[in-house]
């Protein structure tokens, strides 16, 4: 008798604790999300007040333009992380995405300089980008190689092929399409900015507003459950790598238009792409990668670099502040997650 009373009491207190914990958890998560957004807002407010010309339409469009390349790449990376799960060593990741962009840019610029038209050159760049993505898919899905490793090997192949193609030189390029991308504008917004806006809209709708996107999340979140539910896991995972290759190709055309050339060294973008895709998880309610979150973090990184520029702070600081912010944001996130995890 007394034992059962005790038992009930324990159960009741357990329940209370659990309730308190889940309330605390929700509160913690809320604080983190609001905190991240507040930090975002505070930095922006500082720039608005102290950086001359920060809020001018011209400058803001400039930031969106500058963010276009990083944004498109980060969408590719985000889709791979969504479909492959966000585990550190075993989850989905595409290390080859930046090198792939370099290769596509080299193919595109080289074909243009050889006199092939825009149509063929763009087609070839997209074909190359998707082929590299397909190679990743084959390695990860077909052969079961860890994504981290498979895409690392493909990174070397893509970077090496870019070097062989361009002999490590700048390949100048000009074409009607590039002309439109450089100087065209519609409703007062330049073509590059439109490219990011349209691409973002498509990605957000496809991933967050269709059953396709929902299944993609299922595949990344719990492959076995997804399989049991009749979803073709290999197809979805392969799709993300090919999509990532496609994003690399699109970004390559944008980068050629911005620089009027294909230039060596695009591999350096990799870390920023990773940072953008991973930082974006903070903007989602359950700390999962989302396209909207990625867009916000890409714009945030862009605005940060831009604000520093306007404040005349040396660009050498940008990387460091970006790194510190990642750490800060993720530390707060994992703090909230920690209270979530200890059930």
């Amino acid at each position: 008798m007394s034992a059962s009373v005790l038992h009930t009491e324990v159960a009741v207190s357990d329940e209370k604790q659990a309730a308190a914990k889940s309330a605390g958890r929700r509160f913690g998560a809320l604080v983190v999300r609001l905190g991240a957004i507040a930090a975002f807002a505070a930095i922006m407010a500082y720039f608005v007040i102290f950086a001359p010309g920060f809020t001018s339409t011209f400058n803001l469009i400039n930031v969106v333009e500058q963010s276009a390349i990083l944004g498109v790449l980060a969408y590719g990376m985000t889709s791979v992380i969504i479909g492959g799960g966000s585990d550190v060593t075993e989850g989905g990741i595409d290390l080859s995405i930046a090198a792939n962009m370099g290769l596509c840019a080299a193919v595109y610029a080289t074909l243009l300089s050889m006199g092939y038209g825009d149509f063929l050159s763009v087609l070839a760049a997209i074909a190359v980008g998707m082929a590299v993505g397909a190679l990743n898919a084959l390695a990860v899905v077909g052969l079961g190689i860890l994504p981290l490793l498979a895409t690392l090997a493909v990174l070397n192949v893509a970077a090496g092929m870019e070097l062989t193609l361009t002999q490590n030189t700048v390949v100048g390029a000009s074409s009607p399409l590039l002309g439109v991308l450089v100087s065209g504008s519609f409703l007062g917004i330049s073509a590059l900015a439109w490219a990011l806006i349209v691409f973002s809209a498509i990605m957000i709708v496809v991933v967050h507003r269709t059953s396709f996107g929902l299944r993609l999340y299922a595949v990344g979140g719990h492959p076995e459950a997804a399989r049991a539910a009749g979803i073709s896991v290999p197809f979805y995972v392969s799709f993300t790598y090919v999509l990532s290759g496609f994003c690399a190709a699109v970004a390559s055309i944008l980068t050629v238009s911005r620089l009027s050339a294909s230039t060596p060294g695009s591999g350096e973008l990799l870390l920023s792409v990773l940072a953008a895709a991973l930082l974006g998880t903070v903007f989602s309610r359950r700390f999962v990668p989302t396209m909207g979150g990625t867009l916000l973090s890409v714009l945030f990184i862009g605005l940060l670099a831009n604000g520093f520029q306007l404040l005349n702070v040396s660009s050498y600081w940008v990387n460091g502040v970006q790194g510190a912010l990642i750490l800060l944001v993720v530390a707060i996130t994992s703090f909230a997650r920690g209270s979530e995890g200890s059930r």
Partner: protein
Amino acid sequence: MSVSANDNAAKVSVRGVLAKYSVLIAFAAIVIFFAIASPTFLTPANLFNVLVNNVVMLAIVALGLTIVISSGGIDLSVGVSVDMASMIFVMLLAVGYSGVVGVAGGLGAALIVGILNAIMITRLNISPFLATLGVLFIGQSTQQLATSGGQPIYLTSGYAADQFNAIARTALFGMPTPVIVLIVLVVAVHVLLHRSVFGRYVQAMGAQPGVAWYSGIRVPRELSMVHVLCALLAGVTGILLSATVKSYVPLSGNAFLLDAIGATFIGTTLSRERKPSVIGTLLGVLLLAIVKNGLLLVGWNFYWQQVGIGVLVFLVLAASFGLRRVAH
């Protein structure tokens, strides 16, 4: 019926063996190929050159990563540890300090990077991937700020050069000092990782973090140690690098990162559970080094080498992972 079953079993085991030794087989095939293709490849002078110039530094960084990856983590900031050690070492020598002070300072700088990683990961619960990525960005900025945007520091003559030569150009027991350093570190890390209590803790954390925790392993303490050790090993590479090239070139350490990760994971194909090991990592480093050197000797230009290495690593991984998948 029973014959076919036996047949199947035999096939499966052959595949398993092939998967297990695919790296060794690839290694042997590559050595034979280059030995035939280039008369200079198997000469002692060339092999020695590969050892000193391609193996030593990468191997030491890869040893550090082997420890970290064994613990279930990753360290993307090894390049920063290499660079910071190199930077402080060269800067101290540049203002006239002795080699000993320089080495201590350099290792101290790497130690700080390791401690920073350890705090991020164990105290703030940031995932190793993100924590070390953040530290990588901060490290890059620090170097750019300290060198006005990446100006290299060259110390090719005078007292500092003598100190460099004392580290990189001397011999102990008939071997160049860097090679001796590598041998000592390989033995030390092997014992630490595969023969010590600490090593068992590290392996346990890598296999089952939760179980390791409930078994009373002080996970934060051991994990901190793991990251500090990795940074220190990378720091040793930074010092050997600077002493060899008699200079500090900012942001040069990142070149080791992807190769070292590649070498460590190639090494994991040796074990059925895909666990990293010191022997496996060394094999991975040797494989990468020999391919680089061989392609150079065969006359492929530098640009094609990267393609060659990528394709080769891809094939080795495909063989190992693909065959094992079929075997199971």
